[in-house]
């Protein structure tokens, strides 16, 4: 569990947009995994099995909290500074992208994060989400298009 914890933390935070929500989701997911440990029939697949549980928990919580008020306060000046000075390192840019990510439908956000942030293959994503490869490709494509609309010229291709 320790071995994959950092990936899970990042995935949960990108999915839920909040440290506290991600923390709660991971606690719940790990506890569920502990209770269901006997159902993991192949120890070599433990990582994928646990990822599946974490993704399910995040999806459930994202749906539950999806209509909550957004936590981000836009600061256009800070964003402009971030984009022109240190685009890859600045927290403002990351917050802005996370803000856009939060506005995606849950299934598209999940697909985008797994594909482009966690850099998993479509086969791995299919195993984790239970969705087909074609559907996942479509979700990723739709997510990219929507993000391009939301972020516009702020992130240049």
């Amino acid at each position: 569990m320790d071995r994959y914890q950092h990936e899970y933390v990042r995935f949960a935070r990108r999915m839920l947009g909040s440290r506290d929500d991600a923390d709660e989701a991971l606690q719940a997911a790990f506890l569920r995994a502990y209770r269901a440990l006997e159902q993991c029939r192949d120890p070599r697949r433990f990582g994928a099995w646990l990822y599946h549980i974490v993704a399910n928990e995040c999806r459930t919580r994202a749906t539950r909290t999806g209509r909550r008020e957004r936590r981000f306060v836009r600061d256009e000046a800070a964003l402009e500074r971030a984009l022109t000075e240190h685009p890859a390192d600045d927290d403002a840019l990351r917050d802005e992208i996370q803000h856009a990510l939060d506005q995606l439908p849950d299934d598209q956000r999940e697909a985008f994060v797994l594909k482009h942030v966690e850099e998993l293959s479509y086969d791995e994503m299919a195993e984790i989400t239970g969705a087909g490869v074609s559907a996942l490709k479509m979700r990723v494509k739709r997510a990219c298009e929507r993000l391009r609309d939301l972020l516009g010229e702020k992130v240049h291709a």
Partner: protein
Amino acid sequence: MRERDEWRARRRRDDGDLDAPDPALERFAERVAAPLRAPERADDTFRARLMATVRAEAELTQAALTHATGGEAAAGASREPWYRRSVTVRLTPLRGLAAAAAIGGVMLLGARALERGGGATVASPPRVARSAPPLPDTVRVVQFVFVAPDARRVALVGDFNAWDREATQLQRGGVNGGVWTVSLALPAGRHEYAFVVDGARWEPDPASTDAVTDDFGVVSSVVSVRAAAPRLGAT
């Protein structure tokens, strides 16, 4: 059939070819995703809180089992293999004395047989073992070396530091500053590890001959730390 083919072709045109994604969109996705790949760490108390919850749950489960009815306990016992079942034997005082004498007799005969050399697999502990250190050394210092001239930082992760990317940083050295090293005291046993370059790139140890691949195809290296041989002659 023709209508369906036309519908599919139209849909492909609308969606684009999913197997050959738009390069501009891919570049955009990469640009968006790069900042999101920054490492994230769980709160320092995360593990402790999780383990406390798990322990509490285990205790509750144990308590529930303890309060189970005798009938259920008996049913559970009957599912155990014969050699793990507990057996209650009731004896009269006279039969108890006879059984004790019989067991004592068997033990005496067994001990005499061993003294005659009949027990090749059972031996008295050699006298030297009492004067030897009670435990062999179980920790060895292992030096990890990784060559990466262009890296800004290199971390060592493994089962010995809970795969924590912040726990063990290598120090830059060497003639051109491209050799990264760190020395760690590791307990005897088999340890899986890898290097993380610049906080993101996972690299197995090129110098290691033993490696494992996890279920996502990520390769980690393996180091086997051998316990020091016990110094039997030491006094």
